[in-house]
């Protein structure tokens, strides 16, 4: 899978790409955990603009990282999910605990 992670303004900016399923879940989770161990990140922004598919394996990875940052008062924001990906996130209920923004800039502004 494609994965770009940047640390900016207390926030981990995570930009995965491609189809996210069980075959990349461990790689995705391990990279996120390593970044959270390394950087003093309070919040996470997942920019899903380049993600064309998600299933429940990957929603588990997102939820796991939400649990980690929310314990310390951090927030998670989803940016630009494609319509079919957005439908899955909505059905899963993750939008009840994670925010949504149209751009990374807007998300960073919200996180202030």
């Amino acid at each position: 899978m494609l994965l770009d992670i940047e640390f900016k303004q207390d926030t981990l900016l995570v930009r995965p790409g491609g189809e996210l399923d069980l075959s990349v879940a461990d790689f995705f989770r391990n990279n996120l955990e390593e970044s959270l161990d390394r950087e003093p990140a309070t919040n996470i922004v997942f920019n899903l603009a380049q993600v064309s598919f998600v299933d429940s394996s990957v929603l588990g990875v997102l939820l796991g990282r939400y649990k980690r940052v929310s314990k310390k008062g951090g927030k998670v924001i989803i940016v630009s999910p494609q319509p079919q990906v957005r439908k899955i996130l909505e059905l899963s209920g993750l939008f009840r605990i994670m925010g949504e923004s149209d751009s990374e800039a807007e998300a960073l502004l919200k996180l202030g």
Partner: protein
Amino acid sequence: MPFTNQMKLEFLSIPANISFARATVAAFASQLEFTLSDLEEVKVAVSEAVSNSIIHGYRNAQDRFIKVYAKLTENTLELSIEDDGRGIENIDKALQPAFTTDPERLGLGFVFMQSFMENLQVDSLPGRGTLVRMSRRVGARAVHNSQEH
């Protein structure tokens, strides 16, 4: 004579084959007049069923086989996903939303299958395997759509 078509797919229980399975089923199903959005939903259902076979049926062993059967009639895709893994002890419990045996997972696999497909049927014998059957009609509005608007 009414249109019918069938295919059988058998592959190793390797996570990389999940995308192979869903893409193949979607390509086959596109012989009917499904919309792209319908096919995306079918792909999620296939992905969940095959993932369940790998994770739960075979406990991530990569040397077992998963079978996918697809049948097209004039306006319906019928799907079966079969493994000969551990089976499910309590199917009613497994079908409940948010039931999961793993804290990193959401317990939404069957929820997505139920939301995106029709006539979901799960047959399982502990120690023998699991057979998941589901179908999707062309033009059927999946249950979740009515809640979105």
